[in-house]
């Protein structure tokens, strides 16, 4: 007896939505097994990682604070992935957005009466867009793979960040620590709900999800993106320009990543430090796929991954597990998801084993 993979006539809508759920379930099961192997009580560990972060004081609001940047980045990426534009340098665009925004904040350091954060928003978006525009230019002009160029630029952005915080932007009263001054109240993302850390960036993420959904479902542009990804030749016959879709994908992806970076420095982090790049740009890739490259799906996917970050932090403290557990879990989740996605286009059939000819 063996399993055979048989193509379906058309894509299964059921499995398009079922696959992420099955993948999450399989990931949980695998995590349980890993915990058992590591000699931790599996159920206890599961509770610490996946339940405790939610039931903790301010748990839900923290989930949204954590999820906001991931969701913002992933909405941008999912538009690009639809058109087969593989921007995997969102991490660098995120850092650049944070750098541009911090530059504005430090320039207006003495301003107290004017809300500097209003200026930091376009600066952050611009920073990310500039960093996204480079791979777009190199792709459309010279045919260079955006996968490799955008990733290389991530290393460059991280080094630029390091240069600034140990060099010209180092906090003069920071006892030599590699970080900028703490941003002033005027340069901070406004807090919206007293008693929580919910700030403007969280609302911005929700607005971006809605805008993204509108763009994808209701506009000609969204239609072009879908066609370009699923049927590139049809898109070419229809006169859709791949070049402009490449530009659009990288500018939107870069801009949203930059905005996420801006809100992180202006919000939860409060200054530029070498600890800023924590892999949100890569996590967002997983979120984009988990969310079926759809902004609404990305919203829920982002919350799941945000939970995995919070759970990973809890596991570090309560169970003494290394921080890398979060990354391993994320990798496993994407493996399962990509595997389960087989069921969208194919079904499995059990074939009785044929008797071998003698």
């Amino acid at each position, binding site marked *: 007896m063996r399993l055979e993979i048989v193509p379906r006539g058309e894509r299964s809508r059921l499995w398009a939505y079922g696959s992420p759920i099955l993948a999450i379930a399989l990931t949980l099961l695998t995590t349980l097994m890993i915990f058992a192997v590591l000699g931790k009580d599996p159920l206890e560990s599961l509770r610490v990682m996946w339940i405790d972060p939610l039931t903790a004081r301010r748990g839900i609001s923290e989930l949204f604070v954590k999820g906001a940047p991931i969701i913002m980045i992933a909405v941008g990426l999912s538009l690009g992935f639809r058109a087969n534009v593989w921007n995997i340098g969102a991490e660098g665009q995120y850092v650049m957005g944070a750098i541009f925004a911090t530059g504005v904040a430090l320039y207006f350091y003495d301003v107290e009466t004017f809300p500097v954060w209003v200026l930091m928003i376009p600066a952050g978006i611009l920073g990310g867009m500039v960093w996204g525009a480079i791979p777009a230019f*190199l792709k459309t002009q010279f*045919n*260079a793979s955006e996968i490799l*160029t955008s990733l290389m*630029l991530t290393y460059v952005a991280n080094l630029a960040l390091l240069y600034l915080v140990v060099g010209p932007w180092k906090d003069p009263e920071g006892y030599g620590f590699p970080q900028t001054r703490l941003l002033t109240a005027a340069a901070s993302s406004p807090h919206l709900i007293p008693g929580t850390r919910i700030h403007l960036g969280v609302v911005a993420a929700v607005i971006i999800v809605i805008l993204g959904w509108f763009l994808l479902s209701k506009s000609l542009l969204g239609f072009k993106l879908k066609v370009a990804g699923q049927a590139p030749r049809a898109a070419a016959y229809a006169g859709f320009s791949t070049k402009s879709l490449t530009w659009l994908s990288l500018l939107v992806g870069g801009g949203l990543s930059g905005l996420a970076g801006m809100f992180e420095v202006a919000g939860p982090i409060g200054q530029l430090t070498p600890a800023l790049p924590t892999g949100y740009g890569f996590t967002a890739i997983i979120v984009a796929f988990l969310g079926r490259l759809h902004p609404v799906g990305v919203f829920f996917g982002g919350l799941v991954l945000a939970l995995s970050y919070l759970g990973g932090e809890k596991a570090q403290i309560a169970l003494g597990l*290394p921080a890398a557990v979060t990354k391993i879990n994320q*990798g496993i989740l*994407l493996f399962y998801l990509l595997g389960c996605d087989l069921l969208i286009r194919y079904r499995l059939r059990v074939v009785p084993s044929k008797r071998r000819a003698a």
Partner: protein
Amino acid sequence: MDSAVFVSVILSVISAATPLLLAATGELVAEKSGVLNLGVEGMMLVGAVVGFAVTLTTGSAFLGIVAAAFGGALMALIFSVLTLTLLANQVATGLALTIFGIGLAAMMGASFVGQPVDKLPSLYLPLLTDLPIVGRILFGQDGLVYFSFVALGGTIWFLFHSHAGLVLRAVGDSHDAAHAIGYPVIAIRYGAALFGGAMSGLGGAYLSLSYTPMWAEDMTAGRGWIALALVVFATWRPLRLLLGAYLFGGITILQFHVQTMGLGIPAQFVSMLPYLATIVVLVVISTDRSKIRLNAPACLGRAFHVTG
């Protein structure tokens, strides 16, 4: 430049080039069969940590190197099951492999951070190694350096002078035709991908056992991605890979020398050099679209499934 400085520069270029050459040679074979595995960075990291851990615990560098190749191949097996058997998107799966590899290596290596290990022993032949200038360069390297050349030579022979290599290239250029003739497309791709993983593992092991004999998180620092770019740079021809790997080895070393020259350029800008050079090289090569189209395996990155 006096000869001692010259020799030490050449030696350091070789050691910076070797991990790139090892990983890129493996990836080139995988890509020739049509498999685009973007997980090189993750496989190198796993190779680096496994090689280090096994060497440290068993005291045998040989076992460590073998284990590193095995670890890299196991990572490639995950990739192969997903993309070749379960027909998952190769780009996305490769990214997943890198994310997973970074985490897995960090977790496995947590208890090894900061521990020293003996550097891989170098060859010593009386008289030959003592020759002026060329002695150390030609006869004083460690085993993995020599192996990187043997593997490259073997790859050239295999791909272009053996029947099996011809079949592998056919699978990469037209999987439908290769299947129709009766070649096992999927099995061949599994083999090529596993070879790629093993070579990436060796590249990683070179980093943690010879280049800087220690383990540190993310110690590959993007070399896996540079190796991927080198395959494009070489337009899928192994001999050009040698040129590319040594060019980048040179740039990496240039970086250290610029820093010590005291030109007042901040260290971070100098460290950007290899990444910026990768972009420049990609742009230069990719501009000539026909060159890429003529040399890239036609089925690169495409899933193959037998229907009917």
